[in-house]
């Protein structure tokens, strides 16, 4: 046992995590209930319960199982996926700002999906999932490649350290989103489909899609949790980690694989949603400290909570029309980024 891991598993820390977990479970349960109970059509709690417990094919049953439940499941999956991705990315690149949306990883998925729709006519959910996974790989490679290419410290002016990574993300996102809109001018059918997908909502996802997303995200989460001890050692620095017998490259590689699976599945289901991976780990650090294992477990509750709230806001704020979830998360996430930039002088230098 290392010093760090010993400290991370003190009884005080444990009881704190337990308290957070209990509160988190209650909050998520409440939000899930709200997400299933509230909708355009007014349903009594008894009707909803009937639909969940013993559905008999009534209209209310179909509304709950066909519309609200898939939507809620996707929101939960996407929230968990993006929050866990944030924790993983931040541990891998040792940068508190690393986040799929900010780094342009989602833009990579967006481009791949657009190109697939338009150029290859691939429009099914299954195709979208694969394209999104490939695009996520492209985004990750591009951002990390750009960040490394200039050498860690050198950057005579064009942003150092944490900012450099974010700027690489901005550059990747700009080029890829311009490419996306150029591609989308090429064809029609894809175009209409793309408009629907890139609006980034959880609506209109049917149960099979929701379950596929849940399974993919589940796999990514299991991988992430298995990596927690390795990530904990990685936080001590590459040399120390190596000295303690960690295969640094392997841990990093597997963590990025988990990011690709999680982000790819999330983006395929909901379109690009930014800032969840930034906000959730930041808030959790205040509550739980810096232990990657705790942050990962916490993300499984906090991510879904944030996205469920965002989705509830998105479908009520201009009802009956809906605003995209990504807009709502930007309203929450951008101020957090600003506060972060202003608040932690040491870490961001």
């Amino acid at each position, binding site marked *: 046992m290392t010093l760090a891991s010993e400290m991370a598993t003190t009884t005080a820390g444990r009881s704190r995590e337990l308290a957070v977990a209990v509160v988190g479970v209650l909050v998520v349960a409440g939000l899930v209930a709200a997400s299933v109970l509230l909708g355009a059509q007014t349903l009594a709690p008894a009707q909803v319960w009937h639909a969940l417990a013993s559905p008999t094919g009534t209209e209310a049953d179909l509304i709950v199982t066909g519309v609200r439940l898939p939507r809620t499941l996707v929101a939960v999956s996407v929230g968990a996926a993006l929050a866990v991705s944030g924790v993983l990315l931040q541990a891998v690149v040792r940068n508190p700002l690393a986040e799929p949306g900010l780094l342009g990883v989602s833009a990579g998925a967006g481009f791949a999906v657009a190109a697939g729709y338009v150029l290859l006519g691939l429009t099914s959910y299954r195709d979208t999932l694969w394209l999104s996974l490939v695009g996520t790989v492209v985004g990750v490679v591009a951002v990390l490649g750009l960040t490394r290419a200039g050498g860690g410290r050198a950057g005579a002016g064009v942003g150092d350290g944490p900012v450099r990574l974010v700027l690489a993300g901005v550059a990747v996102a700009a080029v890829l989103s311009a490419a996306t*809109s150029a591609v989308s001018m090429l064809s029609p059918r894809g175009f209409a489909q793309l*408009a629907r997908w890139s*609006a980034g909502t959880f609506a209109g996802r049917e149960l099979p899609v929701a379950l596929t997303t849940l399974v993919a995200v589940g796999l990514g989460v299991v991988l992430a949790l298995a990596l927690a001890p390795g990530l904990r050692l990685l936080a001590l620095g590459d040399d120390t980690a190596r000295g303690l017998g960690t295969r640094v490259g392997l841990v990093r590689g597997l963590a990025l694989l988990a990011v690709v699976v999680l982000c790819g599945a999330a983006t395929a289901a909901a379109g690009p949603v930014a800032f969840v991976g930034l906000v959730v780990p930041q808030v959790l650090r205040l509550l739980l400290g810096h232990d990657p294992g705790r942050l990962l477990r916490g993300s499984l509750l906090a991510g879904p909570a944030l996205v469920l709230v965002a989705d509830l806001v998105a479908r009520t704020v201009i009802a009956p029309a809906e605003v995209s979830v990504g807009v709502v998360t930007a309203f929450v996430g951008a101020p957090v980024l600003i506060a972060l930039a202003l608040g932690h002088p040491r870490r961001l230098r």
Partner: protein
Amino acid sequence: MSRPPLLVVALTAVAALLAGCSAAGASDSGASGAASSTAGAGTRTVASAHGDVTVPEEPQRVAAVSYDTTWNLMSLGVKPVTSLDYGPWIDEFSTEQQAFVEGVPTVGTFGEINVEAVTAAQPDLIIGTAEEVDEATYAQLSAVAPTVLVGGGSRGDWQVTTEQTAKAVGREAQWQESKAAFEQTRDRLKTQYADVIANNRWINFSLGDDASQFSVQQPTGATGNLLVNELGMTYGPGVPTDYNARGYASYPLEQLGSVFEGVTVALTFASADGSPNPGVQAIRDNPLFQRLPVAQSGHVYPMASSVTDYPSATAWLEELEQKVLSVL
């Protein structure tokens, strides 16, 4: 900086434009402003969105610079010398329409009209809709040839736009003829199928604003207008009556049951070649739709015709008779 959001909005807006192309709205009167063109021998004066315009008595080379103008001209038997670039969406149109614009030079897309390409086609008359052509572009086009902007309301306001287009190209007689043919068919249907029309509650539905929604074509839209105002059909009691200028309203799928309440016949849209529209099919496949009485009785009819002028409206009525009225 990062632009995806606006891109998304642009995509959505264009998609909405496509989805709503059968929708009509209230027309605007148009801002004032005189078009400068010299009057000469063999000219006429016609009304346009920005004031009267002097046009050739018999225009030989007509340039279309708005999406529906091409089809309006097609209904009048006038082959334009330019059309907008349908590139992306051309396979959404019928084979006749595709053949009609085959080889016609394109002059850009909605919002980005290439005035030089219009000039290169050497038109003696330019026609567009006031909704799609802004004033700066109008001024540039007016320097090329007399430019008539029709309508001023929604793109789908075809009864107004075709009349003004017919006047501009000097084919009013042909327009009157097609209007009379339409009215004759309409009146025949109204008498012949009076009981079918009166004994059923109708709805005309389509894609919604996003995949979780469906839309209802209102009487303010092109096909809704044909059903409710021209044929005198009654929508189901569950259809909200707060009609808007867009010509359609979008509702969450959850509300299928309440909006379709009491409906006995539902019309919807098919692709131009008659194949099911994937988006409409997704709505029809939804369990909430399938448990509707109208779905269980099988009275859901996709219509392949699109309505942009009197001949296509007549064709739509004939399709309605053949597919729906005659079998009920």
